């Protein structure tokens, strides 16, 4: 039997190989990126003498891909549908389906919003401002705006809702640091007070970049309902002055003016201002006048230029880390010139193809998640959350938004309910930021206390509102079938023999005690949503 299968499989693979070679023929010898990924990852395993891991089971893959692409677990129907499907291409089709789902854009907007602004940014004012920004981001992802265009739009800050980035990162200091770190993956701020400890950058480099932003300012326009219309303006005058000053100096402290200089590049050439030039007044609530010469425009061009050495690289590293758990270079925003990353050949190749595909993020995501490397199993001896050579699937905690949505789906309240609401302030507070300064998950007693005694988890498990608990209580299926439903709903998998048996026992009450039955059902559901398996994406 095995031999026959092997023959069939060989035959299939032979076909696939033949078909797979077609694109290489057409595109002049290029393998699809997903296969290059697999090849390189595998090569690194061999090099490091790591036993290659197996592939994830269907239910593991299902849950993983849903969370990664649309930010919530699959519902019961979707789960059973996928698990029962015998189509060998079902994983690929699922990826396509989810990438076309509007929730994909929303999820990407959420991920990039938190990256760009931080979890709890200052200066945002009313939270509707943030919603507005996310809405703008969502539109970009829905249209699959090429990444370099997206960054250009973000930095040009002309489209409605796109300006919050400048509002949050105010002042030349913050703006320079944030832009260099988030968009170009360089921790240039370390070079602010002394020449960079690990790179060859100097203070001159830092202040040279700051020079592009020192004239930028944010101006408040009209407020409609709770949303403020912001303008990002730029003065015609103003310099970064610097001299050797104490540790906590800011640009603008007395010193010599520093001309703007592109990082790793030339000084900026700018025209002289007319002699009697006076900075025009900025009128209240109105768009500020354009500057005589815009430094910011120049730096935006440079940042989003095709040949900017940092832009594609940083984006690739970030996206790779988003799905694989760990960038080629770790931490994700600390790319320095000497570090080639854990998989230098692969990193370079992805970067090249990303640029060749016009910075198409959706294409990149599709390639990554269709790779076998992404789809590896979650068991193995490695104990890190994100193993360096990807020999085990990464384990990452669900964000509070993912938790909120997934809890609704897990307790059978449906996608609408999951997508509509927002986590409460309490939930944000207790579940919002479970990582330490280095990005590692920290289990905390305060989080567990909230899970135990806060109302969110309990209320969703309590039988009511036609949720899963209520339906199962009323339903006439066998206890075993009910337990199966619970596991499939919450953990997107069937229970093991032991688990089924244990849960059936737990749900069994003496006589007809409806109250007890309800209590037990609630408790059993609570256990499923509170366990560590639910809390992470793996």
């Amino acid at each position, binding site marked *: 039997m095995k031999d026959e299968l092997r023959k069939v499989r060989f035959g299939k693979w032979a076909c696939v190989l033949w078909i797979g070679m077609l694109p290489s023929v057409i595109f002049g010898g290029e393998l699809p990126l997903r296969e290059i990924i697999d090849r390189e990852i595998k090569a690194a395993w061999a090099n490091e003498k790591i036993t290659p891991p197996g592939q994830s089971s269907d239910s593991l893959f299902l849950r993983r891909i849903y969370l990664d692409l649309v930010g919530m677990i699959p519902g019961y129907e979707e789960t059973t549908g996928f698990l029962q499907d015998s189509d060998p291409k079902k994983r690929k089709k699922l990826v396509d389906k989810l990438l076309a789902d509007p929730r994909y854009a929303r999820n990407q907007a959420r991920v990039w919003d938190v990256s760009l602004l931080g979890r709890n940014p200052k200066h945002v004012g009313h939270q509707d401002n943030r919603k507005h920004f996310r809405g703008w981001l969502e539109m970009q992802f829905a249209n699959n705006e090429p990444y370099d265009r997206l960054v250009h739009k973000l930095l040009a800050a002309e489209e409605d809702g796109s300006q919050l980035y400048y509002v949050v990162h105010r002042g030349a200091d913050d703006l320079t640091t944030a832009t260099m770190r988030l968009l170009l993956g360089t921790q240039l701020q370390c070079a602010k007070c002394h020449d960079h400890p690990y790179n060859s950058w100097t203070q001159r480099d830092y202040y040279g970049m700051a020079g592009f932003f020192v004239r930028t300012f944010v101006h408040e326009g009209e407020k409609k309902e709770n949303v403020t219309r912001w303008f990002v303006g730029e003065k015609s005058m103003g310099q970064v002055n610097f001299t050797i000053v104490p540790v906590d100096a800011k640009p603008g402290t007395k010193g010599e003016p520093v001309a703007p200089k592109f990082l790793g590049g030339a000084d900026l050439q700018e025209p002289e201002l007319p002699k009697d030039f006076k900075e025009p007044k900025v009128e209240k609530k109105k768009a500020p006048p354009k500057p005589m010469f815009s430094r910011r425009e120049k730096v935006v061009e440079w940042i989003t230029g095709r040949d900017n050495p940092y832009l594609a690289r940083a984006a690739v590293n970030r996206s790779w880390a988003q799905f694989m758990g760990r960038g080629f270079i770790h931490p994700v925003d600390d790319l320095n010139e000497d570090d080639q990353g854990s998989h230098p050949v692969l990193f370079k190749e992805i970067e090249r193809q990303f640029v060749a595909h016009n910075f198409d993020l959706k294409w990149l995501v599709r390639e990554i998640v269709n790779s076998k490397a992404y789809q590896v199993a979650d*068991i193995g001896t*490695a104990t890190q959350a994100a193993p360096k050579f990807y020999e085990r699937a990464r384990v990452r905690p669900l964000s509070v938004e993912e938790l909120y949505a997934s809890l609704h789906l897990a307790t059978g309240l449906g996608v609408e309910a999951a997508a509509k609401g927002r986590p409460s302030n309490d939930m944000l507070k207790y579940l919002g930021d479970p990582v330490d300064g280095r990005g590692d998950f920290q289990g905390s007693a305060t989080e567990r206390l909230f899970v*135990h005694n806060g109302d969110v988890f309990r209320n969703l498990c309590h039988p009511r509102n036609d949720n899963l608990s209520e339906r199962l209580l009323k339903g006439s299926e066998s206890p075993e079938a009910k337990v199966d439903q619970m596991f499939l709903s919450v953990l997107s998998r069937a229970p093991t023999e032991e688990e089924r048996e244990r849960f059936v026992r737990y749900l069994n009450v003496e006589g007809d005690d409806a109250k007890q039955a309800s209590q037990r059902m609630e408790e059993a559901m609570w256990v499923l949503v509170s*366990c560590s398996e639910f809390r992470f994406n793996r």
Partner: protein
Amino acid sequence: MKVHTQPGNCRPDQHDSRRNFLKGTIVTAAGAVVPNWGALVHSQTIAAEAKRLGKRCIMLYMEGGVSQIDTFDMKPGRPTAGPFRPIKTNVDGIQVCEYLPKMARHADKLAIIRSMKTKSVDHGIGGYHMHTCYPQSERVPHPEIGAMIAKYCDNPESDLPSFVKMGASGNYGAGYLGPKYDPFVLGTDGRLPGFTNPSVKPEVQERRGELLKFMEDQHAKVHQARPFASVREAELRTIRLMRARAAFDVNEEWEKARERYGDTHFGRGCFTAVKLAEAGVSFVEVGQWGYDSHNDNFSCHKSLLGRLDPAWSSLLEDLQVRGLLQDTLVVWTSEFGRTPLINSQAGRDHYGRAWTVVFAGGGIRGGQHYGASDKDGFDVAENPVSEGDYFATIYSALGMNHRKKHFLGTRPIWATPEGSKPIKQLLG
């Protein structure tokens, strides 16, 4: 990242308990196994055995950078003095600020180190350096002092967390020691965070806890990744915390203590620290906000010292009265000091070249100055004390090895950097 700890540091019976703790059960001295995944009540035997032995530490952390010249290193008559005047204490030769009158009566307990000389003079990095002993630029996840002390002085039988923190101080984490030694953070006035009261009946708590344990055990069989372990450990800590929450409830006794400590968050925090020390918590950190006086330094310090004085002095008194002072090291510290020169906004800025910390209790020889700054307070004149020396002194006072070695992969890391020396003059 593999973390190995040095063997041979604990007593055999403690070692046994630790193993069982990790398995999720408690073994009493009599050998009975008690499940503790949800049980909110445990037997008298365990309670008795959980009584503390060994030393503990309370750290009073002045957030923002406290001014040494306006507290313990007065410079009367000098241009850097400012408007505060010194007063005598109950120790000849020791003077303190007039706005610390109650502390003046405890000078015999205090070891005043006036020669701190540290390198990280900004918030964030200063707090990090003074909490972990290492500068923040290094890429090693150093544990903060509370985590280190919690690990080596903890009592695994106790339900209470070994490391409790309240008020302002930042969260530096347990680093390479692992999330088990993370602080349990209370509100700024020592109140329990929300949701500490169990929301279900004890029997429900217990049976669902059992079911949860079952799920976790099944999961742990094939899932070794650290985040899962982290959640499991947190769950265990949480159950024990709910069980021991009465220890944090100081409301009734606070009514009487309020007068002495001052009706402030910091006062209540200090009182809570005393109660927790009594209940056996190894390390409690109480932070007081607001010392970063780049402008109006004297108004700022005057009001803060007015709150610090009754709280700190009552804390020392109460520890003494309860017979705990000998075994409890009380450290008064900050991120850095403040400039001797007053700036143009009547303020003082950050300063690391010469500043002051104060130790008391824990066997420290009180009633003395150690080290001195020059006549105007610009530099250390004698016996400079580095971050490493400061940490070494604390660890030594608590009976810990200040050159304790851990491993990050294959790389060794020491609790204090090479060359750190505990201050012999202070240690009994």
